[in-house]
């Protein structure tokens, strides 16, 4: 059996996803980082962006996170985000509408949020 690490993806108000994975790719403030089993203990600040989790059964889980942290220790990776959504939960049409609306309203934060959602869907 290949080495695996336990991943917990939690948002402020719920637990979004948890399970075993072989690779997690996330975007920190200093660039994309890939975490594999046995990585050195790590604490990083996440940027808004898609997080890709390669599960042990070969599947891929993509989630959009809007800021947060990642901490890895004892083969356990915690991804903490104020808001986190799985790509499957994201309604593409609504995100596109939100993006357009945010652009016309000049709402930078909303625009970024919608953009992150769309990117997560695109990765899937």
């Amino acid at each position: 059996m290949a080495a695996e690490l336990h991943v917990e993806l939690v948002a402020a108000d719920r637990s979004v996803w948890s399970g075993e994975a072989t690779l997690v790719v996330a975007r920190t403030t200093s660039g994309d980082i890939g975490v594999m089993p046995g990585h050195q203990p790590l604490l990083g600040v996440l940027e808004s962006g898609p997080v890709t989790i390669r599960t042990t059964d070969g599947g891929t889980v993509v989630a959009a996170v809007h800021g947060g942290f990642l901490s890895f220790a004892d083969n356990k990776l915690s991804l903490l985000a104020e808001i986190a959504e799985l790509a499957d939960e994201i309604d593409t049409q609504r995100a596109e509408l939100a993006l357009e609306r945010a652009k016309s309203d000049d709402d930078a934060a909303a625009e970024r949020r919608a953009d992150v959602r769309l990117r997560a869907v695109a990765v899937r």
Partner: protein
Amino acid sequence: MGAQLRVYKRRIRSVTATKKITKAMEMIAASRIVKAQRQVAASTPYATELTRAVTAVATGSATKHPLTTEAETPVRAAVLLVTSDRGLAGGYSSNAIKAADQLTERLRGEGKEVDSYIVGRKGVSYYGFRERRIVESWTGFTDSPTYADAKKVAAPLIAAVQQDTAEGGVDELHIVFTEFVSMLTQTPVQHRLLPLSLGEAAEESAAKGEILPLFDFEPSAEDVLDALLPRYVESRIYNALLQAAASKHAATRRAMKSATDNAGDLIKSLSRLANAARQAEITQEISEIVGGASALADATAGSDR
């Protein structure tokens, strides 16, 4: 029908209506407690992970950060008081206010100025009536707070902590809220959020037999701490708001339950009185009839003679 009996009947009717209302409120509150408890449980993983991370950074690195170091001579402290928007919850809000008053008193005794921040209309009106200064207040979300609400509350507090004391910033941040212990027990508690008391946090993790690993920080320990601490404050405030909401519903349920019980007792004693009044009326009527009949009999017997 006698006037007294009519008055009793009317009172019984009005108390019955009140009882129906309080019963309904009790049941609504009971269903909301469950929902609020579920929310508290859902927010727990985030809070525990965040606390672990904060403890790890703060103990595992030699970084000095304004949010973790104690000021040598603290001048000003901020107190965040969480009350509810609505009453009908027994002593819920006044207990929290009392706890905040005690804390304020103690801080003043230590020679600190106290800035009050208040959540909930009850607290705001209490302070407003006594013309005490409120730095900032929030209302309208105490029944079911969201994370966005917690962020809104936390933002000015974090800004105040980061500001220099000379310019009106604060050295300490305290929070007073009602902790949800169980359905029957809710106690007002006070916590110091900032500066972090690291000894406590380290002890807690040591007690669990957890050895914190040496972390690699990305991009750097300072930056991580900078980003982490505001989130930590937000999550603690969110947790406090959720617990306060659950406590409020539990307090409402209990208050409404005793109101329903009292209404039941009142109805019982009123119907006893009404029955007695009815009996008295009947007795009076009978004695009047008997009296009238015998008077009539006496009169006719007299004329016969």
